[in-house]
């Protein structure tokens, strides 16, 4: 009886990502499928009405270039779109505008930690652009169609079949997600379907050059599901081969309740997509100067940035918190070209902002907080212009409503009082109210000074400069 150890697993992963553009891929409708009531982002183009024509969204192309660069792909100087023909109720034109012969990017790589613990470069075969379909909402016998998602810019990223385990596939998908978020290409929110992964799995006896018959596992809800499905398929294929059978080429889904895969479509039902060049769209030239400009605008590579944070002394728990909250890109932008204050900003982000994320249940990228005002708020604290409490109030306002740090500090009266006269006035008022304590102090009970100091600070609504207040108080107490 042979066992699973006798087989070599081969996996290729295809990932679809919705790009963070303002408008859709081929029309001017807003790209915000979740933020609008159903069928509100709908025009003749996204409805596939007769006579409607696509116009390429340059911003989607730009994000595609950015992704291809971040994944170290070769970028084709002239690209074009093809029609991928199939009929389904969620596909308004009966074809999807996609890329086939000349994708935007080819032959890149992404480094992961392989099963042997060493760095492993996962070869990326292609990065191409296409459009999303409508969303189907099934209710009983009927299916409802939401056109809002129709025409949302999608990027497809396909690896070579070089992954060897469910663990590696999961690691690759997580790393890819982090890199895309870090580079501002997509928000990749899995719960909103902004990132979807599919895996092609096959096993073959070790030593054989043939990869074996593959099965395709569709649209898993999460990366851990993909891993479970891959591991299930490895066992299932091994069982079939051990029994002398043959694996059937088919598309399968993952049933997380029963922890198994199930047949969705057999090879006989496979589509012939009848690709041909999209005649409504002339080829797009990606001028080398354009690509160079985008290259110059990229943040430093994700792995380099992680390495730098470590070398600056940031610990693994902090790095884990930053990556878990998709905050590396945010931090990078807050640090900006200046490169200083990295650790300071990172610590404040982790301590203050993530606690807001936890208390509100609102992820950082869904808050109103922007990197530049965040940096300014930290600077106000550092410069002593606000105290800790004022800083937290500014952050909360920025998080909930957005805006500029200084404007909020001024409007909400959070700037520290540095006016000698105002402080002296407050001291005089407090001293006249607490004459017994003053007497005690002067009688040598120095400990009451702290209580008096507290009263003064309260009188100043906690925004007196503590150092200045202390000095002036000592002067008044004599």
């Amino acid at each position, binding site marked *: 009886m042979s066992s699973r150890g006798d087989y070599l697993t081969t996996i290729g992963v295809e990932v679809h990502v919705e790009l963070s553009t303002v408008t859709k891929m081929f029309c001017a409708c807003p790209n915000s499928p979740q933020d609008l009531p159903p069928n509100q982002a709908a025009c*003749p183009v996204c409805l596939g009405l007769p*006579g409607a024509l696509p116009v390429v969204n340059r911003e989607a192309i730009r994000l595609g270039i950015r992704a291809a660069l971040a994944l170290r792909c070769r970028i084709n100087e002239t690209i074009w779109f093809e029609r991928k023909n199939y009929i389904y109720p969620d596909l308004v034109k009966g074809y999807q505008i996609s890329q086939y012969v000349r994708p935007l990017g080819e032959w890149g790589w992404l480094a992961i930690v392989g099963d042997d613990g060493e760095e492993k470069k996962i070869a990326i075969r292609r990065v191409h652009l296409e459009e999303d379909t409508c969303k189907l909402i099934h209710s009983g016998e009927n299916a409802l169609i939401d056109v809002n998602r129709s025409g949302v810019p999608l990027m497809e990223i396909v690896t070579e079949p070089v992954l060897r385990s469910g663990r590696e596939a999961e690691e690759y998908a997580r790393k890819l997600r982090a890199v895309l978020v870090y580079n501002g290409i997509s928000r990749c929110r899995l719960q909103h379907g902004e990132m979807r992964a599919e895996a092609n799995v096959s096993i073959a006896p070790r030593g054989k050059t043939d990869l074996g018959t593959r099965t395709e596992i569709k649209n898993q809800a999460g990366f851990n599901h993909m891993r479970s499905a891959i591991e299930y398929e490895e066992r299932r294929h091994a069982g079939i081969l051990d029994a002398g059978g043959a694996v059937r080429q088919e598309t399968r889904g993952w049933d997380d309740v029963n922890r198994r895969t199930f047949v969705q479509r057999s090879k006989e039902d496979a589509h012939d997509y009848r690709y041909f060049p999209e005649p409504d769209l002339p080829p797009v030239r990606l001028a080398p100067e354009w690509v160079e400009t985008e290259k110059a605008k990229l943040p430093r590579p994700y792995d380099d940035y992680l390495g730098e944070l470590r070398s600056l002394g940031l610990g693994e728990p902090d790095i884990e918190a930053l990556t878990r909250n998709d905050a590396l890109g945010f931090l990078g932008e807050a640090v900006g070209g200046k490169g200083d204050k990295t650790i300071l900003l990172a610590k404040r982000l982790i301590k203050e902002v993530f606690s807001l994320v936890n208390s509100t249940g609102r992820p950082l990228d869904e808050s109103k907080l922007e990197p530049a005002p965040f940096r300014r708020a930290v600077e106000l604290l550092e410069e002593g212009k606000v105290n800790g409490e004022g800083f937290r109030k500014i952050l909360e306002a920025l998080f909930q409503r957005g805006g500029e740090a200084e404007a909020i500090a001024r409007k909400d009266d959070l700037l520290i009082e540095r006016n000698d006269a105002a402080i002296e006035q407050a001291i005089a008022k407090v001293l006249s109210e607490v004459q017994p304590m003053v007497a005690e102090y002067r009688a040598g009970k120095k400990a009451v000074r702290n209580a008096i100091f507290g009263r003064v600070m309260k009188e100043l609504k906690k925004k007196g400069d503590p150092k200045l207040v202390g000095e002036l108080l000592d002067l008044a107490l004599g």
Partner: protein
Amino acid sequence: MKITHAQFARLTLEEAIRGTTAAELSAIDLVEASAARMNVFESTINAVITRTDEVSRRNAEASGDLETSGRRILRGIPVAVKDNMMTRGIRTTCGSRILENFIPPYDATAVARLKSAGAVVMGKTNLDEFAMGSTGEHSAYGPTANPWDPGRIPGGSSSGSAALVAYGGALAALGSDTGGSIRQPAAFCGVVGMKPTYGRVSRYGLGALASSLDQIGPLTRTVRDNALILDVISGRDPLDSTSAPGADSAPPCLPGIEEGVNGLKMAFDPGLLRGNGISPAIADAVRRAVALAREGGAIVNEAAVPLIKYGVAAYYIICSCEASANLARFDGVRYGFRREGGDIWDVFSETRGRGFGDEVKRRIMMGSYALSQGYYDAYYLKAARVRRKLSEEFSRLFKTVDIFLLPVAPQFPRPLGAKAGVMEDYLGDIFTLAANLAGLPAISFPVGVFADLPAGVQAVAGPFNEHLLYRLARAVEKNTSLENAPWTLAGPKEAK
């Protein structure tokens, strides 16, 4: 001054503009006369699927368009639009049952340009279903008859636009031309039809047959009217990615139209006038145009574009491939005709099986087949290569020549209902589809009447040289008489 429909039918578009400008004619008079003309002829000719004279008149009255004497050039001019161009709030069928109840929420760019120039759309004209066909018989709304002889076909697919203009129901109509669909019915109905350079007129809002070949253009009774309409509808459109920068920079067509042909270099291929099943009178029509051009001072030599003979094969592959995808959207899910079925796959096949006519199904099948795995290289790619080579041949020719003259169709219009074979109809497109494959402007204009039927000739030029074609057509027009043309009649002729 009220005018009768018979007077209206003899009016040119320019005369109507002058009449309204001089306040001798009111726009209302024109609209009423156009409607009256349709009342007389439509039962015989069936040029219009949906009449819009009432609604257009109401809209125009409501917006004061008919009274105000703005500077808009087509103010109050009755026109018609082929029913594959989207008209906001007005049913647009593409000649198909599958869109029998479809009311688009937007105007095609070309229609919007006509409207904003002040034109009044009187109707949506009949066509071969989805512009597939060259006889006017493949319409779900009945065939259109030829106003010269209602027993004959008007040609197609812009059958209704050509017939309506020919009987004087409108001063101009828009057609679309994928392989000759403006030029061939124009020739069969004795009117002027222009297929502009690919990219000169926006395709936005044109129900697509073959996206890389389709182009909208005008059909009119006179050459000057045609140039005037083209100048109104052409121009770059940000909504059509294939609309060309040259659409804005090309010379306008009307201003130099009277300059004649003196010094223009022309060519024709006598070889094309032999064989090809060509009627002797059609060959004579081309020779007559050559003679008139020479009289006008043009230098006419012989030249050949040999790959034209492979055009039919390349065209029907490319056109069918693109059409098979363009028509996939008609599935009964979101709009249009829908036939219920057991599950969604039944709905698809029932809807499409009953919504489309035979010619449409034939082309969807041919296109799907040619694009299938294992056949793509042999068909689509090969056809695309022939297309490129043909374009190169034309490019070489137009380095030394301004205009290439050739027939429009090999034969005169055949009797209605006398169904020729499919291949025979396809082969009839041999002279027109080359200009679509190469993206070049081509005009069809009458040169005379032979045995009571008009004969047209076709002229092709280099990209954005429509103005040269108009100069030639205008020079020939001055020497052409179309006796007993339908627009000179008080009522339709009886079918023979």
